[in-house]
């Protein structure tokens, strides 16, 4: 075997590996493109006004530009009639429940990360806690649904199972009217999603804190700062961009969750937006699930339209996360 053929073989192997990588990348992008294209095609019937579309693109009448999108789809409630159906209740419910989830999960998660990273001693017990949190991040979200059902919706049966025997706080028409057990209300949904999202927030915040160079912590401690002063004035501000990115990504995950809310039993059909924290609600992924499960083809098209809206929302979330990460990133050392 001459030296030249060994060299040729090496070059060929290099090219073959490059070709393989290129093929994988293209295949991934192709699959994604096909997926998006098919969803767009299926959903276009209920998302766009065909007459307005043809008016603008075929005849060039720009006055019809705002009428291209069927705004009724976004402002109507769900209905038995596909032409009248919309995702208003689902969008409002999603926003509400993600807000509650964020308000609960972010302080708790970031605080836990600060404690575990800056204050907790490094011994077997904290290693066990760390291991458990990492496992919890990988648990299928439907399991959290069962936990939410027992702990929040039914509250272990402590307050009885009859709706009439529930304890209630606050006047009936206030937004903060709460009933124990939480039932299928916003609070129960928000708390269940908080369970799903908490391990992710803890892990990403810990990684963000770990990325801050220890030389900064040492410099701070060496001039007489307490560990809390160091964590709050030096480490946390330096880690905020990464923590923020992780938080936004966790929230975009929460927005796409249907399974845990399915288990706690949110209603299939809802015709109003929630009035208080205990009111019934629905979320966009769940509405999609409902419509996709119906036999009629037009409901499948509705589901596809709703998927398009959900995808746009998720892209915006992720886009904001990437933009913030770029904008706020600055050198630390």
């Amino acid at each position, binding site marked *: 075997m001459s030296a030249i053929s060994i060299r040729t073989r090496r070059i060929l192997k290099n090219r073959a590996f490059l070709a393989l990588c290129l093929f994988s990348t293209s295949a991934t992008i192709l699959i994604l493109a096909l997926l998006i294209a098919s969803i767009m095609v299926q959903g276009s019937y209920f998302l766009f006004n065909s007459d307005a579309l043809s008016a603008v693109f075929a005849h060039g009448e720009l006055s019809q530009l705002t009428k291209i999108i069927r705004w009724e789809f976004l402002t109507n409630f769900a209905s038995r009639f596909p032409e009248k159906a919309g995702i208003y209740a689902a969008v409002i419910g999603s926003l509400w429940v993600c807000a509650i989830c964020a308000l609960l999960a972010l302080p708790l998660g970031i605080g836990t990360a600060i404690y575990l990273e800056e204050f907790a001693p490094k011994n077997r017990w904290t290693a066990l806690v760390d291991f458990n949190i990492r496992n919890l991040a990988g648990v299928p979200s439907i399991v959290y649904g069962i936990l939410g059902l027992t702990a929040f919706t039914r509250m272990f049966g402590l307050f009885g199972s009859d709706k009439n025997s529930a304890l209630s706080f606050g006047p009936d028409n206030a937004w903060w009217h709460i009933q124990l057990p939480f039932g299928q209300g916003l609070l129960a949904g928000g708390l269940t999603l908080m369970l799903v999202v908490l391990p992710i927030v803890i892990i990403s915040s810990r990684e963000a804190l770990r990325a801050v160079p220890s030389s*900064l912590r040492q*410099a701070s401690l060496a001039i007489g700062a307490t560990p809390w*002063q160091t964590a709050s004035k030096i480490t946390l501000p330096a880690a905020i961009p990464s923590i923020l990115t992780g938080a936004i990504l966790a929230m975009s995950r929460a927005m796409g969750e249907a399974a845990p809310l399915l288990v706690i039993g949110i209603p299939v059909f809802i015709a109003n937006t929630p009035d208080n924290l205990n009111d019934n609600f629905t979320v966009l992924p769940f509405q999609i699930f409902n419509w996709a499960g119906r036999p009629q083809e037009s409901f499948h098209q509705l589901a596809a339209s709703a998927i398009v809206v959900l995808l746009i929302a998720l892209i915006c979330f992720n886009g904001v996360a990437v933009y913030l990460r770029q904008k706020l990133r600055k050198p630390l*050392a």
Partner: protein
Amino acid sequence: MPDTQPNLAKPATASAPTTTTTSPVSEHITLRVKDFNAWYGAYQALHNITLNIPSQRVTSLIGPSGCGKSTFLRWINRMNDLVANARAQGVMQLDKDDVLDRAFDVVELRRRVGMVFQKPNPFPKSIYENIAFGPRLHKRFHRSDLDALVEQSLRAAAIWDEVKDRLHNSALGLSGGQQQRLCIARAIAVGPEVLLMDEPCSALDPRSTASVEALIRELRQTFTIVVVTHNMQQAARVSDLTAFFFEGKLIEAGPTDGMFTNPKNKQTEDYVTGRFG
């Protein structure tokens, strides 16, 4: 004002500094260390160190890598508390206060004993905020008092003229030598008694090294300074007292001139003449 033109033409021999005007040993001892031992887990890093650090002088700790001089330095301000399995035993007294006592306020200790690290580590904040951070931790200030303190610290670190027009720019925009002088200014802003320096010039170019060394000689009038260095010529240029460490033991300590011209111990002589290290 420190020299901005370092005299690099002069050969860097291990000779005593020619401009010592004060006696190398002062009457007052700031740090008393007796029979001090330190371990990392099962490994004993320091064996029975007995050393007195005099006040308002520069003491340098020299020795080959791994001899324990940095470990010793980090125990003086209890930075080794951050290391999980580090422990120490013995007597270490800072002006009658027992440094090793668990009940002794470590935060107050670190205010009294400042530290400058090998690699300059300014906070990712403005120059002003870097200096103001320390004093603000310990007491409340009026804006004008804080401005005065920042200016005073930057002047004392010989960097005021270079940064006075850009106090609110990021500290990370400074050069390496400037950043190190900023770290020294940050350390002196809290008003310590002792300054610990762990190889402060090893990451700097010769010109910056010269300005930092001149600064150290200047600061001696106000602070007690302990410098760890693996550069013997630097120890000779900068310090009044030298302590030679080897394999965790203190071999010899004494006035710098004597150490380099007439060492009492054979190992010391071998090290300073470069036979090993």
